[in-house]
């Protein structure tokens, strides 16, 4: 099984006529993802690789039954796109866009808070349920269908981890990039809950990084409520304080968000922390094997 998305997901790609939207639509179609519709205001009636383009998400939902959104819209307009999908009753919104102003996310984040909607991202690689569907930009061939759930704040770092997992013989049920921005739609805990309830997920790899306290909160949740093996990895042990390390959310500030504090919290909760990325596959064999 998988969580959030599977072969029944019908994707609407927002920003489908842009370079990135077009390229990744093709990649997703190659993976047999059901890309039911695309949206670019003013370009309704066109098609991209046979996918019909609409002016609004509402049209895409009404005419093609889209139920998952994947957003490639440029940063100044992306928050609006999230709100548009939420208003059109899309239940799962994946926002790939990096660089959305934080105050835009304050508004949208609070707008969707009480709605029945799951926002993945922004600034994320998306979600893949290997063998079923891919909603995002991750390189498909490194994944394999299996029983490990992956939750991560990063993109290429997740690819590295998945690559090692697959190499060590561990396939994945679902891999989720929750995003590298300070305000993202979901936390580690939201997805840990889903993996806990998914009978076919046997263990979880959690990939965190410096900044914020999401990993500390996840540690507490895992200790009290999660009953499957977990491996954690935290990037940024050598990151200096006060510097934004690429991701808008990856910054040690006000004495908060240090890698060592996160590692301590995870270890105190009895979670296996892989101290070295280079040997994560080996750690997986020890813990999950």
């Amino acid at each position, binding site marked *: 099984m998988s969580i959030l998305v599977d072969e029944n997901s019908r994707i609407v790609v927002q920003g489908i006529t842009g370079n990135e939207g077009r390229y990744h639509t093709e990649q997703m179609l190659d993976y047999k993802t059901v890309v039911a519709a695309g949206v670019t205001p003013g370009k309704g009636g066109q098609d991209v690789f046979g996918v019909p383009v609409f002016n609004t998400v509402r049209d895409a939902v009404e005419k093609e039954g889209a139920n998952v959104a994947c957003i490639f819209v440029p940063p*100044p307009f992306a928050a609006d796109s999230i709100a548009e999908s939420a208003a059109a009753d899309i239940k799962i919104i994946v926002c790939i866009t990096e660089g959305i*102003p934080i105050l835009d996310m304050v508004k949208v984040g609070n707008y969707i808070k009480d709605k029945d909607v799951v926002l993945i991202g922004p600034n994320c690689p998306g979600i893949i349920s290997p063998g079923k569907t891919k909603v995002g930009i991750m390189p498909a061939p490194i994944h394999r269908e299996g029983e490990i759930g992956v939750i991560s704040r990063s993109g290429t770092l997740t690819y590295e981890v998945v690559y090692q997992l697959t190499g060590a013989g561990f396939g994945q049920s679902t891999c989720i990039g929750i995003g*590298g921005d300070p*305000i993202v739609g979901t936390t580690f805990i939201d997805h840990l809950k889903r993996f806990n309830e998914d009978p076919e997920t046997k263990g979880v790899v959690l990939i965190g990084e410096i900044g914020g306290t999401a990993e500390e909160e996840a540690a507490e949740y895992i200790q009290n409520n999660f009953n499957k093996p977990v491996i954690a990895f935290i990037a*940024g042990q*050598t990151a200096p304080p006060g510097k934004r390390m690429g991701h808008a959310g990856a910054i040690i500030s006000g004495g908060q968000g240090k890698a060592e504090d996160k590692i301590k919290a995870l270890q105190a909760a009895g979670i296996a922390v892989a101290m070295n990325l280079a040997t994560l596959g080996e750690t997986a064999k020890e813990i999950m094997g």
Partner: protein
Amino acid sequence: MKLHEFQAKEIFRKAGIPTPNGQVVTTADQAGQAAKDISGPPWVVKAQVHAGGRGKGGGVKVVKEASEVATAAQTILSKPLVTKQTGTEGVTVNQILIEEGVDIDREFYLGMVVDRATRMPTMIFSQAGGMEIEEVAANTPDLILKEHVSPITGWLPSQAGNLIYNLDPVPPPEVRKGLMAVMANVYKVFLANDCSLVEINPLVTTTDGKVLAVDAKMTIDDNAMFRQKALAELDDPREKDPLELQAEKYDLNYIRLDGNIGAMVNGAGLAMATMDVIQSAGAEPANFLDVGGGADEEMISNGFEIILGDSRVEAVLINIFGGILRCDVLARGVLAAAEKTKLNVPLIVRMEGTNVEEGREILQTSNLEFLVAKDLAEAAQLVAKQV
């Protein structure tokens, strides 16, 4: 993007947040002139640099004679300012703010940031002003009060009340009024300028009942610069490391660190993790460099050049996990850079992902000398051999 204190104070004054009177100058002579226009004694002479910890580093001086203002300015301008945030080489001071001294009655801390958990701008207020807020948070967390601001209601007077009536002792009515106005205006400044941080430490009340922002820190959300064009002009490139500045022009994420192993990686998380791998191999990273998930040949070439432009670098590790960025594009970018800048340090290349075979072939059939690491573990071993 960080603003200087004097820039932030100008924005404050326009928004109705009172500050002491002052002038910004660039020479000791100008400082002496400024002292004649500004009431005193005392006068406060403050280095304008982005780095924190100025006071303890000797970048802020209080003088009692007008004639001493120029001398104090000269002392500050004459040598690099070393604070706990600058490193031992310090930073050059280009500008100085001369201000009137104020008769302080009480000192407060007032800050605003976006709280990740609640997704709301959050006002932070404390009666332990003038101290480092991290220390207050660690030692006396009870003295730190917070109010989250809903984007639906905006900042409410009742929220100011929650903060102000919690003070011990509660200030007199005219001071309460002044504090309430500052809080409302800080929220306005925060929104209008797309801030990721506004901080006044200390916010003071004077013996004659005024409320004044004695210090000011403002950081603008880099993601919002496209709609904050006027603020972009306040950027001071002199405050940045030259290599970081060069990287910024090329749209690359580069941060200079203290080690000697240069690293070029795609993606921020993998770049951080690669720095960690370098360290656990017994070496130290010279930089963080994320060329981005979708870098093209030119960006790779520029990134590689920046690393080679750092004289401390004794070996370079390239770690690329091809996704959108294809390994053949990476290989061509590295070759293009190596043609422009002579490569005279060992180069270790680890690549995986999209078009990896093609990328390896491009490098192998070139005259570039490099070591191939088949995976990250081997890359770490090769790095360890360089130290």
